[in-house]
């Protein structure tokens, strides 16, 4: 049997004096092309949130661990990414964690008390936001057909959420809606901070309006037929999601009719 490749993440960084490695306090697990870099940068701007300069926003720690699971040494390595000074919180946000069937259980072992963050966006817009598609085209090493399917399936959120809730209690998972964050970033960021156990009032140093990563990569031009297909194919999946998440405002997403 062939051994799968381990994740490609770099060696964990050395913490500065006085910083202590520990399990992450928060981990963003979803979802790609939904404003997670923007939201992560707002969280990181909180004075009580610390991240080592060498630790990226996306650690991708579990991507390659489907076969062998997690050893104690792996857990220790994971924690090394989240060294922080006394009294601060630390974490990461890898939007693909929610997609991989094996990741929620591994994450639960590596960070049992972490608060999980999920940012969801209208799946039609997420599909259109071309980077996923372009990425897939090169990494699947395959056809436009496979790339379209992979991008589409990432937008079926309900099942991903159900898998997450199998590994973590629901109250440990905060699901945010990108469109609500754009409309009222202050209220949604206060909600996020409160969920993370941080003082909810937003420090003046945080600039809410600056969007990170917004226009990188070409957008996919969808024909009217493709757009209509996506809206209708996602409609039933969005309805299912709404039964799981009563606070989801489906009027902010594209709907049929």
């Amino acid at each position, binding site marked *: 049997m*062939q051994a799968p490749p381990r994740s490609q993440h770099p060696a964990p960084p050395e913490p500065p004096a006085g910083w202590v490695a520990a399990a992450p306090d928060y981990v963003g697990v979803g979802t790609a092309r939904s404003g997670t870099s923007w939201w992560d940068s707002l969280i990181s701007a909180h004075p009580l949130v610390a991240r080592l300069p060498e630790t990226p926003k996306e650690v991708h720690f579990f991507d390659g661990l489907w076969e062998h699971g997690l050893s104690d040494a792996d857990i220790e390595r994971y924690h090394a990414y989240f060294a922080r000074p006394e009294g601060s919180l630390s974490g990461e946000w890898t939007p693909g964690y929610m997609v991989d*069937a094996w990741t929620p259980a591994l994450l639960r072992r590596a960070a049992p008390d972490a608060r999980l963050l999920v940012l969801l966006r209208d799946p039609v817009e997420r599909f259109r936001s071309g980077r996923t598609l372009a990425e897939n085209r090169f990494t699947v*090493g395959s056809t*436009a057909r496979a790339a*379209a*399917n*992979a991008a589409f*399936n990432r937008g079926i959120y309900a099942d991903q959420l159900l898998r997450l809730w*199998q590994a973590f209690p629901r109250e440990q998972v905060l699901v945010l809606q990108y469109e609500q964050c754009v409309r009222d970033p202050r209220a949604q960021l206060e909600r996020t901070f409160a969920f993370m156990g941080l003082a909810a009032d937003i420090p003046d140093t945080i600039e809410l309006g600056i969007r990170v990563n917004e226009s990188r990569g070409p957008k996919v031009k969808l024909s009217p037929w493709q757009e209509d297909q996506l809206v209708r194919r996602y409609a039933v999946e969005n309805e299912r999601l709404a039964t799981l998440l009563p606070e989801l405002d489906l009027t902010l997403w594209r709907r049929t009719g």
Partner: protein
Amino acid sequence: MTLRSRARRMLVRGSRTWYRWRGPRPMRPPDPPECPPGWQVGPPDYVGLGAQKAGTSWWNALLHKHPAVHRAGGQPKELHFFDRSWEEPFGEAEVAHYARYFPRPDGGVTGEWTPGYLIDFWTPELLARAAPEARVLLLLRDPVERFRSGLTHQLATSRKTLTHRDIQGAFQRGLYAPQLRRVLAAFPAERVFVGQYEACRADPRAQLGRTFAFLGLEPVELGDDAFRSEVNPTTRQKYEPSTALRAALLAGYAPDMEQLSDLIGDLDLSLWPSAREVGLA
């Protein structure tokens, strides 16, 4: 080594590299067959949609043992007609072209079975446009077994080690409920046949009888040797997921199997070891 054989080797290596770099080409359907005299073309009477690695080649071969089921000369089991339809327009010309693949004599029945149609989110609706009266056939298999079999196939046909995307793709194909919802949005439930690979293996005669009845065909008695040979059996070393991955697959498929049994009234989850293991049957 002669200059010529060296040049040939370089050419072969170069094309392999090129193939790996650009990936496999999308399947192109062959040209439509000649319509034999006295036969007529028209949309297919049945179309099999899936699932991959669920015994569809075997089942399709058994279907063709019925004297009323026809396939024009040279017609493959899998047409892959809709594989490119996400990016290419699909109109009246395509509908007419699709029908040309299905000549049949008076009173005969014909169709095709492309297992990949099930995963393509755009295909069921286009198929309903191209073959509005068709009956739809599906064979489903225990999703963990399907996953294992899919990756066994992949390891046998490619020399690459499995990547993150391979695992994601194989997992995704076993999430049947969203795929079934798309089929049932395009076709009325009474025109969709969902068989289970495990039931077919356990009692092929009875299940084939069910399939024939669903297609509106007279019952036929096939000899025992008709059921003896399996099409596409695995001969190579089998891929086995680790204990950790198996547990993750079971947890991941559990909510999907639960939805699936709501969608398909007569699905027998007790035939699937995975469903029994997670307490769904």
